């Protein structure tokens, strides 16, 4: 078999004259695919493979388990609180950072990434130090009979900590690229604060915001380390889906564990799908690129018909 027939087409950037021989190309693709298979595709397949190992019936039975259900409910509740809060935070932070100049702005932007630099276990630890029995507020909380640690509030807090930069990090570069001209035009025309935001800014950032929310949601539901520290691990009460997966796995209930895991995996795949969709969305591309397109100089006489759009 001649190497010439191993036809792996090249993309626009590599011309014929400067391309690698087909053998090299074939090898590289092979290596890449093998690497990804080992580390990416196999785990993905394993989740679903193990979940359905005993058949579809066992799969759904595992999901119907009451403890699994309360784990799902708790996860949904946590995400339901954390995601909207972090969304508002992200929008507020992005608005302040992208539309205004102030001292310490670059420090603030760097600070936002703090939760990413912190190990999940430490993210939980800090709340234990605040609200645990030996924590700062521990005795006071005990006195007033308020349960934060090892209960839902702590789970919510730890999850909020870990996921709070996500929406902000998605919006800040987007809003910075869009600039402030449209908002300035709006206020000159008489629009007040909320009007400007809802009528002018929000439509321009909607895809970035949507993706940020989807990502935040996926990470909130999938958080493990931080929640493991602050949860009481009480079956049916303070276990999120990930914690429940851990418990089932340690009990060798593989079908159960992977069944719940498959739900989370499905959510991850949906998130990846959303990312691709949003990435190809003409609106989103146009959001970023029309910020530069405003500098363009499309020559056309005033009476000419409409030109084709660049959307």
């Amino acid at each position: 078999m001649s190497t010439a027939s191993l036809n792996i087409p090249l993309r626009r950037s590599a011309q014929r004259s400067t391309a690698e021989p087909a053998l090299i190309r074939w090898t590289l693709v092979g290596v890449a695919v093998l690497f990804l298979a080992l580390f990416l595709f196999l785990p993905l397949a394993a989740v679903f493979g193990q979940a359905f190992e005993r058949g579809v019936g066992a799969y759904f039975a595992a999901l119907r388990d009451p403890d699994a259900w309360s784990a799902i409910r708790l996860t949904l509740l946590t995400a339901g609180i954390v995601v909207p809060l972090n969304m508002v935070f992200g929008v507020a932070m992005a608005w302040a950072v992208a539309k205004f100049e102030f001292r310490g702005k670059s420090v603030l932007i760097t600070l936002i990434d703090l939760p990413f630099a912190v190990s999940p276990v430490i993210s939980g630890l800090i709340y234990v130090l605040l609200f645990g029995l030996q924590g700062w507020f521990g005795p006071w909380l005990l006195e007033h009979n308020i349960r934060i640690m090892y209960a839902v509030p702590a789970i919510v807090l730890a999850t909020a900590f870990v996921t709070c930069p996500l929406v902000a990090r998605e919006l800040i570069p987007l809003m910075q690229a869009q600039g402030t001209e449209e908002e300035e035009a709006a206020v000159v025309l008489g629009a007040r604060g909320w009007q400007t935001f809802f009528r002018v800014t929000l439509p321009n950032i909607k895809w970035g915001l949507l993706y940020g929310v989807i990502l935040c949601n996926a990470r909130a539901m999938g958080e493990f380390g931080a929640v493991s520290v602050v949860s009481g691990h009480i079956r049916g009460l303070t276990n999120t889906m990930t914690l429940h997966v851990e418990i089932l796995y340690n009990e060798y209930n593989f079908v159960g564990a992977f069944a719940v895991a498959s739900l989370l995996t499905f959510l991850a795949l949906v998130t990846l799908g959303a990312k691709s969709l949003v990435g190809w969305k003409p609106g989103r591309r146009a959001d970023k690129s029309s910020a530069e397109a405003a500098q363009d100089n499309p020559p056309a006489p005033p009476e000419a018909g409409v030109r084709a759009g660049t959307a």
Partner: protein
Amino acid sequence: MSIEARNITKTFGAFTALRDVTLEVRTGELVALLGPSGSGKTTLLRIIAGLEIPDCGSILFHGEDATDRRVQERRVGFVFQHYALFRHMTVFDNVAFGLRVMPRRIRPTRDEIRARVQKLLALVQLDFLANRYPSQLSGGQRQRVALARALAVEPKVLLLDEPFGALDAKVRQELRRWLRRLHEEINVTGVLVTHDQEEALEVADRVVVMNAGRIEQVGTPEEVFHHPATEFVMHFLGHVNVFHGRVEGDKAFFGALELEYPNGASTGSLAVRGFVRPHDLEIDLQPGETTLLEGTIAHLNAAGPQVKMELLTVMGEIIHVETTQERYRALNLARGQRVFVRPREIKVFLGNRSG
């Protein structure tokens, strides 16, 4: 509505954009702020709009102090250099925006808004594009939408920030004339910022020439062009030739030429620069009493309303001369020909006076 800017100073960090600038714009007139980049013209415009806040000084609208009024309350129309159209709204929605965000009490009804927007779109000749999005329009069309949008709220003042800067030369010319006609029709007080002197001279009732944060001269287009008050104004508006000479007493000397200069230096000899526009230089084939210098024609361009020439003087300098087609034919001018140049008028600036 008249606009008055009094003693405006504005700095951005270490950079001073405006130094103690005072300007008055009369009701109904269209004033051009003309100058190079960094002259402060856009800053001044934005301060009038309320998009920047001056370090000191005040802005008055019709005699009333508006310095502390927020942008939304100033009722000015602003047209941005890069249009700043709302990219996710149609042309119609863009123009209607100002009307839709008015407070309930004074907001017009849906039908009134629609009627007004349609009238404006017809005025800017874009009614057939009402449902398009900005990305589907050409630059000239976008700019007209921006103008219609600014006019929709019936502002007392219209402010335009280099509105035609991002457009093609031909489109720019057409829009310029169109703006002039529009202004005559609507008669709103207008301030236009531009770095294009042709634009300023063609469109404005009065021109304000600015440089490095200060106003160099304010006057009608004829005044600033034919009677520039400073060297900068003369340089900036149109081509100019520079000659070095001396002023002694009430006489000025340029080369061999001696001229009367009544308001000259009272004591001693002062080195000065004389400015002459290319069309103020006359060509002769023989030297005469008022000949300034001698040179050979290095370059000649007769393709145009005037004949433009570049002369290489005996000193090795290049000067630009413009003469009429008749004179060119009468003298039978050609490249390489030796000619003599006589100025009709030389402008000299001592301090800030012109002579």
